[in-house]
């Protein structure tokens, strides 16, 4: 009886430990990524406008580590993706991810020690859906991440207050691609990046 209970106990413990280890994998990747971003933003030696370029480079390196830009771009381009030539696809991924990084970094620069809470994850095959929320001073904002595992877990969509990043761009890209060529779309994205670079500290970007 004693032996049996020990075996049973060990078995339950093993199953228990295994399941938690599996369940946490995607979330751990996301957590590490977000924590690295927060560390850079909180780093006193990287603060101030003078350090902007260094800071942005570091943030970009971190974001590259847990965002799957190709998957994200492919899904945002949706059916347009199949019409792109391989070179256009590469070009599109490069420019779109740069636009996202630039605007993402700008949003993050306003970060002010808000707390990120992890509310749980769901996994199906090689994809994961993670719920988090960020507490601001007068409200909390739900932010969900969708991740995919090719070699490791990478984020390919962010859903803020019910609005999916990929789908929001999909609507815009579909609209443009219905009237213009893929090259024109890529050019538009590049122009957008240029205008962001030109008016670095200006909030108002002319339409």
């Amino acid at each position, binding site marked *: *009886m*004693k032996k*049996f*209970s*020990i075996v*049973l*106990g060990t078995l*339950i*413990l093993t*199953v*228990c430990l295994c*399941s*938690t280890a599996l*369940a*946490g994998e995607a979330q751990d990747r996301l957590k590490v990524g977000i924590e690295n971003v927060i560390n850079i933003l909180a780093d006193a030696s990287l603060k101030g406008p003078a350090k902007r370029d260094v800071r942005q480079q570091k943030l970009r390196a971190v974001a590259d580590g847990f965002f799957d830009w190709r998957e994200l771009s492919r*899904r945002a381009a*949706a*059916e347009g993706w199949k019409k792109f030539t391989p070179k256009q696809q590469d070009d599109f991924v490069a420019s779109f991810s740069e636009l996202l990084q630039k*605007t*993402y970094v*700008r*949003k993050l620069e*306003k970060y002010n020690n808000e707390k990120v809470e992890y*509310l*749980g*994850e*769901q996994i*199906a*095959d090689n*994809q994961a*859906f993670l*719920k988090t929320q960020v507490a601001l*001073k*007068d409200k909390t904002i739900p932010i*969900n991440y*969708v991740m995919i595992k090719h070699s490791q877990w990478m984020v390919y969509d962010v*859903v803020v*207050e*019910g*609005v*999916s990043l990929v*789908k*929001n*761009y*999909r*609507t*815009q890209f*579909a*609209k*443009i691609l*219905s009237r213009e060529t893929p090259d024109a*779309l890529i050019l*538009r*994205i590049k122009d*957008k990046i240029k205008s*962001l670079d030109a008016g670095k500290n200006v*909030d*108002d*970007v002319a*339409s």
Partner: protein
Amino acid sequence: MMSHEKATPMHILSRSLLATLALTLLCSSVALATGAAQTTTAAPASVAQKPEAPSLLLAYGDVDIWDETGQIIKKPAKGEKMTMSDAAAATPDPLEGWNRMWFGFNDKLYFWAMKPVAQGYSAVIPERPRIWVGNFFHNLMFPVRFVSLMLQGKPDAAAVETSRFIGNTAFGLGGFADITADSKPYKPIGSTEKDLGLTFGYWGMDNGMYLVWPFIGPSSARDTVGYAGDYFLTPISYIHPWYWSVATKGYDKINEVSMRIGDYESLKEASVDPYEAVRDAYLRNRYKKIND
């Protein structure tokens, strides 16, 4: 002597039973903790029943596993690749040119008038009093939330809203202090941030078409009707003479904008077609709020 000999194996048995019990408890609590967010409350099916308008999104081959709220999309039938949120975002926009004109107008209104005023205001008034003012106006909008919740058949949530209103009005300096913010109802009631447009949506009404109004911003045919109804449920609408009513609403708006400077800018910065980006975000966000 006899009893003592017998007691030892019993003791081991009960101890091992206890250990197993403890382990099971531990496991289930861990499972609960990790799986807590997975259990979803009863909500409408996440797959659009009959997507009407043939959309570009429909032709897109990749089926998503989850909708925007993390609900699993169950076995989409052929041609059903849209989530309910996608269906909402595919709301027709027959007056696009007209809407784009007002979108441009509101954009200028924001950058030329509201933003500078809000910036000046927030330079003079610190953040905390601005939050109090926000609380005051939010508290005052209680009738809109109460009526909407009752019309949605959520008396529990309406009751919670009522007690918050009474508590904040009586003991929170007329609503300036949100003293009930930390008191949670003993069972979850969902979001109480409702208006009539969301109520019509909850009843199953479609957006109709997308509309942009000057000063008010993005809306839809459904939400416009809701907005008109909300007007009559807003106490500030009854301030006499009318220009004081408008001025008060304007002040509420400026106070709100002062808390959100930068949000619209970053959305506009990040998008290739700001009009489409705002349209998609508005329709999806409204859809999410209906089900919150």
